[in-house]
């Protein structure tokens, strides 16, 4: 007989992704490939993190905002990335996206049965400036504690992205990743998703510190392959050591 384990706490992870006209071609294909790997990373994390169930939902926006199937956060285990497309001429309606996200970010409607749920992670990405006024939508959203207390991080991709907007959406300029090009974005989105999810899964109710900024910082450190803290080398191992064959592995 086995006692039943604790129910896993739900951690919703939202992606709010730009599919405006400027993302057409390689850009949106890079985004798709990067997100496929991100989902894989989150699946691995979920598999090795017994007490959190990661649920993922994707909102893409151009002239309007729309949810990727099935339109509610689903267990990352069952999530299949549906490739996004970007059409020439489409705008960057970030305001619509924030409004849509906020309208669904409520205990009863979207996140049904939030008992034991953790504060969500929200990841924003844009390569441009909002073509609608996003400020009012953001102000509204900030009155919603599920938005306000979420671990929010954002990507400003390329040289014509509105960095200030991403900083306001995340509430903290430290939570903004400025990716000069798509390659940088591709390599960082996985790491940031990982660190943000980790930060959120360790958070406690009422703990509303700067988790977004911390997550970005952690990701940057991991990306730089910075040396982890090492204990100073005291005495080098002497003793009898064989003479090693240094033939180079091919």
């Amino acid at each position, binding site marked *: 007989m086995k006692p039943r384990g604790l129910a896993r706490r739900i951690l919703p992870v939202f992606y709010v992704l730009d599919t405006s006209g400027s993302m057409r071609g390689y850009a949106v294909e890079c985004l798709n490939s990067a997100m496929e790997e991100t989902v894989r990373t989150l699946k691995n994390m979920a598999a090795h993190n017994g007490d959190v169930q990661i649920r993922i939902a994707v909102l893409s926006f151009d002239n309007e905002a729309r949810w990727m199937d099935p339109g509610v956060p689903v267990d990352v285990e069952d999530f299949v990335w549906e490739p996004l497309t970007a059409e020439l001429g489409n705008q960057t309606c970030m305001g619509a996206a924030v409004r849509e996200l906020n309208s669904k970010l409520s205990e009863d409607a979207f996140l049904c049965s939030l008992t034991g749920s953790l504060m969500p992670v929200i990841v924003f990405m844009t390569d441009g400036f909002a073509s609608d006024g996003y400020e009012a939508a953001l102000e509204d959203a900030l009155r919603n504690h599920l938005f306000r207390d979420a671990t929010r991080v954002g990507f400003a991709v390329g040289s014509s992205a509105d960095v200030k907007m991403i900083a306001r959406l995340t509430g903290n300029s430290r939570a903004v990743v400025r990716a000069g090009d798509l390659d940088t974005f591709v390599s960082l989105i996985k790491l940031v998703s990982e660190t943000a999810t980790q930060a959120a899964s360790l958070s406690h109710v009422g703990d509303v510190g700067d988790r977004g900024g911390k997550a970005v910082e952690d990701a940057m450190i991991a990306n730089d392959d910075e040396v982890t803290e090492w204990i100073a080398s005291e005495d080098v191992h002497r003793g009898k*050591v064989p003479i090693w064959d240094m033939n180079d592995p091919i």
Partner: protein
Amino acid sequence: MANELRPHTIISTMYGATVRVLRKLGGGGQGDVYEVEYRGKRKALKWYHVNKISNLNSFVKNLKRNITMGSPTQDFLWPIDMTEFVSGSFGYVMDLCPEGYEEAKELLIGNVRFASYRRRIDACLNIVSAFRILHGKGFSYQDVNAGNFFIDPRTGKVLICDNDNVTTNGEEMGVLGTLSYMAPEIVTRKSFPNKYSDRHSLAVLLFRLLLGPHPLEGARSVNTVLDSQMRRSLYGENALFVMDPHDRSNAPDPIAQEGLVSLWNQMPEHLKKLFTNAFSQEALHDPLCRPLEADWQSSLARFRSEVLTCGCGNEVCCESGMPVPCDACKQLVCAPFVAVFREMVLPVALDTRIYRCQLGNPGISKALDLVAYVTGAIDDPYALGLRNMDSEPWEVHTRWNERHLLRQDEVVQVEEGLRVAMPGTRGPVKVRFERNAQTVRK
């Protein structure tokens, strides 16, 4: 042939250089390949049969774009320049495939042999890594088949040619691919080649490189004429994996394909699972459900570490470090040590490698960096040393609880109780070494 190029012909290129034709190397469906002199160096020129190109304008536009974007990695024989039109035809310049590389076809047929099974795995790893980067950059390849891969059987290094059809994922180039490598949705003409159909073709190529036969050619294809209708059914609407666990109606023929089952049984579970997923009914018919290149990379890197050489020279797979009887000489093959990671156990023997992608989730281009290598000692046939191949130092704890830093190229002797912390992408990855039990564990 009408548009055959004669030696010494000189043609100018888009970047204002010239090519001088030296000799013909071979011919293919879309054109011929010549050895040429270009900017003082020997290069290869692909010269098209223009009538074989369905939409010349967009083809040329795409080729130019590939040339300006540059090669995603060193593993591609990428177009570097394009010639002007001469008597209605044109071509592109790429690096010459160096000596020692063989067409993958030759290796599949068995005309040329890999130096070892580990080199086969290395070739597979190099292929999936190159495609992980290619797809990551938003490209799709469109025509994955054994004819487009050059492999050095001594090292497992790979060069990928025919990159003229490579395009933004989702764009149609007019090619459909090579029937036996085509994804079912391409065979049935429901879709045009893209990243997802590349993934099916890659899985077919990996299966063939590691196991030999085609993964969809089982009992149903034995003793029948493989006419085009039959082949369309085998690779298309009725595709069924020979090792499908739920439907055995296309299982390998017990006589004609006897070797396949025993080889399959020697594969590690994690890899069998990946093949089973890649050729499941779900993945055959839903392109979005196919394993990613990163999945193959993890599994192949692990498999690479699990293959050991028996005293008789045969290679066997010691999954999770477990001793197994050699299928050639029946002796028990047992790695002297095992390396215990949080999520897996690897055998530790001469030539064991640990790659960066086994220590977390590094950038795509760093995934196959070698971080650790097991070497032997010159003066002690039984000693094994673990060499740090990484620029970052490791923290090493010996079983006497001494600790020190092990810098790049330094070696520590592998002993019972040795613990090493290697820098991973998310903090140090701790590995403990244990002497391996000489008995078959269950």
